[in-house]
Every structure is written in structure tokens, then in C-alpha cells.
């Protein structure tokens, strides 16, 4: 059952690639439909898992990644439907496939630790995952911006100019995605910090005791917060929009990916539930 969303995301990925390359409207609609189908099935899988473990399945890196994939798919579908722009799908869906693949391969049902049985937990994790989904979108939008920017600068309009929306639209979308992501990231971190201060004096769980700014998982996420804060500040105050904002979004999301997979799996002492 956990493999089914992966399979459907893969099909959607192929359809998006085909519709992007051939600019076929019909395949494009098929791609959207298959991604919507994949997200729907994924919703059922997450729902079943919720019933199975008795709370939202965010415990363990694999489950968190899978929830992130689901959120990103839904956020992307929302963006596609509201802007009527399908060109970004070819960049987003492969990311979904890879991450869902990582998640599916290491998937196992984890009984939640007693310490996680708290409403703070759901708010903390869902805010952060939503922020990551927004940053993933911003990163992809940024990459497409740079691709189109290069074509326009080199004065050889071709593949991307024919398929992507205008630079200004991409830049505005990037700005919006980063702002939304930053709000959720800040909220998620704040909730996590408050929760930690409540927990630390009383719990003996070594993972909770290991939570500090020096734990890689936490220091890396704070680093990404700094990058995005700078991006927002620089866009407003010193005119770092366009290409610079695009690069910053790509750097920010690389840090998040680093945190989500290698740090989440191997390096952290605090967040390995």
C-alpha cells in the first residue's frame, strides 16, 4: 500500500515530462489528473496510518518525509489550479518521486514515544512540513526563473521561453512562496521552542535532553531560517529580487533537503523518534 502513491507519483512525473517537452495540453491534463489521483491515494494512506498509530503519522523521518511529499503535492496542485501554470510540475513531481521513494524504502510503523503525545507536536511538525513544501515550490520557481533569465540574457529564446510564464510572474510567485514558508517556519520553530521549554525540566528522554542549538537538526534549520529571513529582508530593503532571490531560494531549500534526509537519518541526536 505504501508503494502505491510512489507508483502514481512516478506516472504523473512521466506525464508532466511528456507534456512539458511536447507542450501537449491533453497530456498536461492527464498529468494533473494523475497527480491529483496520487495525492488522493496518498491521503488515504496517511489517513489509514493515522488510524493505525492513533495520531498523525509524523513520527520517524520516513513518515515525516512522506507527509512532506503529500503537502508539497497538494500545495503544488493548488498553485497549478489557481495560476493555470503547469510548467512547474516537471520540476516538482520528480522531487516528489525521489522523496517518496526514500520514504517508502525506509518505511516502518513506529509507535510514538509518550513524550510526543501532545497537541504541540502536531502543530510543530505540520507547520514545519508546510513551510518546507512552500520552500520547495519557491526553489523550483527560482530554478525556472534562472533558466528563463539565462535565455533572455543570451538573446537566444528557445525551449524555456516557449514554456514558462514571464520573469515577473515567476519572481512574484517566488516571493509569495518564500513569505508563506517563512511564516510557517517561524511559527513551527517557535512552537517547538515553547514546547521544549515546557518539557525539558521534567522529562528524562535523552532525545529531548539533546535538543539544543548545537544539535545538527536544530542548527541546520535555524541556518535555513536565517537564509530565508535574509531573502525576505533583501528583497524589500536592497532590491534583491529576481535572480538573486531565486538563488537564495535554491540555497535555502538545499539546506532543508540536507536537514530532511542525511541529517534527519544519520546525524541528529535529538530528532530521531
Amino acid at each position, binding site marked *: 500500500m505504501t508503494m502505491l502513491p510512489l507508483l502514481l507519483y512516478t506516472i504523473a512525473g512521466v506525464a508532466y515530462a511528456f507534456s512539458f517537452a511536447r507542450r501537449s495540453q491533453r497530456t498536461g491534463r492527464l498529468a494533473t489528473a494523475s497527480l491529483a489521483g496520487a495525492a488522493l491515494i496518498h491521503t488515504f494512506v496517511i489517513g489509514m496510518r493515522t488510524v493505525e498509530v492513533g495520531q498523525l503519522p509524523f513520527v520517524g523521518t520516513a513518515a515525516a518525509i512522506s507527509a512532506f511529499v503529500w503537502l508539497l503535492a497538494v500545495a503544488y496542485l493548488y498553485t497549478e489550479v489557481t495560476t493555470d501554470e503547469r510548467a512547474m510540475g516537471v520540476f516538482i513531481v520528480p522531487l516528489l518521486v525521489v522523496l517518496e521513494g526514500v520514504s517508502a524504502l525506509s518505511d516502518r510503523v513506529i509507535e510514538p514515544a509518550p513524550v510526543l503525545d501532545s497537541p504541540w507536536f502536531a502543530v510543530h511538525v505540520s507547520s514545519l512540513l508546510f513551510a518546507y513544501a512552500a520552500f520547495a515550490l519557491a526553489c523550483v520557481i527560482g530554478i525556472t526563473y534562472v533558466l528563463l533569465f539565462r535565455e*533572455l*540574457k543570451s*538573446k*537566444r*529564446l528557445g525551449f524555456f521561453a*516557449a514554456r514558462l510564464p*514571464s520573469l515577473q510572474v515567476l519572481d512574484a510567485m517566488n516571493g509569495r512562496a518564500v513569505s508563506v514558508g517563512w511564516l510557517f517556519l517561524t511559527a513551527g520553530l517557535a512552537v517547538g521552542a515553547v514546547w521544549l521549554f515546557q518539557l525539558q525540566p521534567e522529562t528524562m528522554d535523552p532525545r529531548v535532553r539533546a535538543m539544543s542549538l548545537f544539535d545538527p537538526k536544530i542548527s541546520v534549520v535555524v541556518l535555513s531560517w536565517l537564509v530565508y529571513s535574509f531573502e525576505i529582508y533583501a528583497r524589500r530593503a536592497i*532590491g534583491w*529580487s529576481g*535572480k538573486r532571490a531565486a538563488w537564495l531560494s535554491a540555497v535555502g531549500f538545499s539546506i532543508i533537503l540536507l536537514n530532511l534526509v542525511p541529517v534527519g537519518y544519520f546525524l541528529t541526536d535529538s530528532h530521531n523518534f
Partner: protein
Amino acid sequence: MDLLLLGMSHHTAPVDLRERVDFSRRGVSEALRELAACPSPTEAVVLTTCNRAEIYVACEDSETTRHGLERFMSRFHDVPEHDLAPHLYVHTGADVARHLFRVAAGLDSLVVGEPQIFGQIKDAYAVASRERRTGALLNKLFPWSFAVGKRVRADTGLGEGAVSVSYTAISLARKIFGSLKALRVLVVGAGEMAELTATHLRSQQVGRIGVTSRTRARADALARKVDGTAVDWTAVDDELLEADIVVTATGASTPIISTTTIDRIMRARRNRPLFIIDIGLPRDVEPDAGDLEQVFLYNIDDLRSIVSENLARRQEQTARAEAMVSNEVEAFVVWLRSRGTIPTVVALRRRFESIRQAELKRFESKLSGLSPEARARVDEVTQLLVQKLLLTPTERLKTAADEATAAQYAEIITQLFGLAADAPTDAPAAAPATRAPSPSPSTSKTPVAS
């Protein structure tokens, strides 16, 4: 009933003749009404553009109709027949479909893939429909051509990429800014090129156009023409701060806008993108300015090279487009051929229906005891039976591989069922239909004409 096309275009006639043979001068409706007075064509559509004048008709006798149309063209436009004849082309049957599909796809246009022709064909068909001059044949052919035109453009990208310098500038602006509606434009120079580009931008409903020139009076004049504002030559820097698109087309012998100026302005603009179209020769803007991050600087050669790349790309796609047109023509021919068998199909149905009615009549006395519901059920069952029995032979007849086979099938059915005596003499196709059938070119299946 056959299809016939008589026309002239930029391929066959010089511009002075095309100007004289322009249906739009006296009106397409009038042409259609005069054509209606001619004896032969039962359906007609007149297509007129600046590059072509064509009459599409459905007629019984192509040869007679052709002469009639030639005389009509000569009379209507007051051009002697011998002047006209060498420049006319004539197509019949499937070639008419091929020609129209190619025209609709933009393959026959002066600039391959140009989009206007598509709307012009739609208009021509709409006028003919309004004048009730279209019937079964043209009501199938024209909507089919719209579908072909649309699909060829969508699948091959034949109509994509600007193929004129000014349109290239506008499409670049769209790629940078998206909508041009609220943008500010600064035109530097007031010559012919500046005017042409400013006019194009005005037609895109940009926010504000500022015009500046060393000679204030010329700036004022151009500003009035393009509904813009004249700006003092000394205030160019301030205007550059606000502008999104700058068009420079002065006759200056050295660049009038330096990289240093633009660099300074970009800082003050906080890197807001600036699109500079430098169509001056020699160039008005130092080329290095294009290296600044958010400056998109295109000179006349850049624009021209994009135009030629787009033209080359369109050429590459024409082979694919031609293949698509050929497939559609084949499908249309199958439909056309199936019409030839319609009289047989109709006769066959009539024969079966008369048998059904006769048998019901024969059993009238036995059926009279039935309730009205049961009676209706008997009627329904017998009708269904006849329909089922006729389904396969009708389909086979209409989808016969070629004309000879279709004729052979029709002959056999006529003989076997003794249809010769009661075959309808007038094909239903001859009756002008007022309702346009929905275009279904993807399939060769057609509605049963009964």
C-alpha cells in the same frame, strides 16, 4: 454533388490584380447573393483576405460551375476574363479539402503559420451561414478545417514565435514583464522607427508612453500621435528611473546612453528590470549595459536574428503539419465517399420499413386485441429489430475502403434487395442543411443521414 474551389492568392497573382479582385470592397454578402443567382452551385463560401480571394462551392457539375464562377468573378470585380484566367487556380473534390485545411493551418500563408487567416476563414463561413448559402458539404468541410487548423497549431507550434521585429520586441517584453498594461515606456528619438515601435506598444495598452527627442517639437508631435507625453531631453535620467521599457531610435552617431548611466539608474531603481530596445543605427546604448544584471538590452540585429530563428523553426514544423493535413484529408475523403452510398442506405431503410409496416398491417386483426401499451411495445420491438439488422451492412457500406468497393457494395445491395425500383433520386445531401454539424475530424465516422 462535388466540391469545387476557384480562387487566386499571393502564389498566383500580383498585388495589383489581388487589389482589384477583393470581395470585401463590395461585400462578401453581396457576392454570395449574386452567386445565388447563378444556376449551378448549391452551396457557397467566399473567402477574402489581402492575400487571397477564393470561392468554395458544392455543385452538381464541376465543369459548368467552374466556367460560371469565372464569369461571375470577372463580372463582379469588373476585370476581363482573359486578365483573370491565368492567375486562377481550380481544385475539386479532396483537393478542395486539402487546400482549405492547408490554408486554415497557415501552411499556404505568405508568413507560414500566421494566425489571422484562421479568424478570416471563420468569418467567411459565418457570413455564408447567415446568408443560408451553406449546406451539408460545406457545413462539414469548414468546421472540419477549423479543427485541423487548431490542432496543427497546437501540436506543431507552427504559429509560435514572433516573425516581425516589432512583434518580437513586444513578445520579449511579455516574457519579461507578463502583462504590459501598467508599464511605463520611454521612447528616445522621434523618427519613423521610434514611431512604429511606439504605435505597436500603444496598441498593447501600456500604462504611459513618454517621448523625448533633442528637438522638442518632434517629441511633441510623436507624443500626440501615440497618445503619450513629451519629455524634456534634459530629464531623460529621471524618466529612465521610472521606465520599464526604453525604446531608443535616434540618428545619433555615438551612443547617447552610457553603461555608467544605466548602472547608476539600476541602483536607484533597486534592480527593477529594465528592457531596452535599441533600434538606432549606429546603436544608441552602449552594448556593455546589457551585462548589468536586470538589464535586458536588445539591438536591431538581436531582434532580427530571433525573427529568422522563428521563421526557420516554423519551416521545420511544416513537414509535420503537412502530414497532419494529409491524414485529415484522408479522413475527409472517407466521409465524402460515404455520402455516395447514402442513397443506397436510405433506399435500404425504406425497403425494410415498408416491409415492417406491411407486416404490422397484415397482422392488424390479431394485434387489435392488445392493450395500447402492448401495441406500442410491438411497434418498438419491430423497429429495433429492423435497426439491428441494418446496422452492420450500413456501417460496412459507409466505411468501404475505396470508391470502387463502395460502388460494388451499393450495387450488390441494390440487386439483392431489389432497391432499384424505389431508390431515392435525390440524395439528401443535395438539400441545403441549415444546421452546421459539429466538427469531428478525428474520426471518419459520420452521422447517418436519414
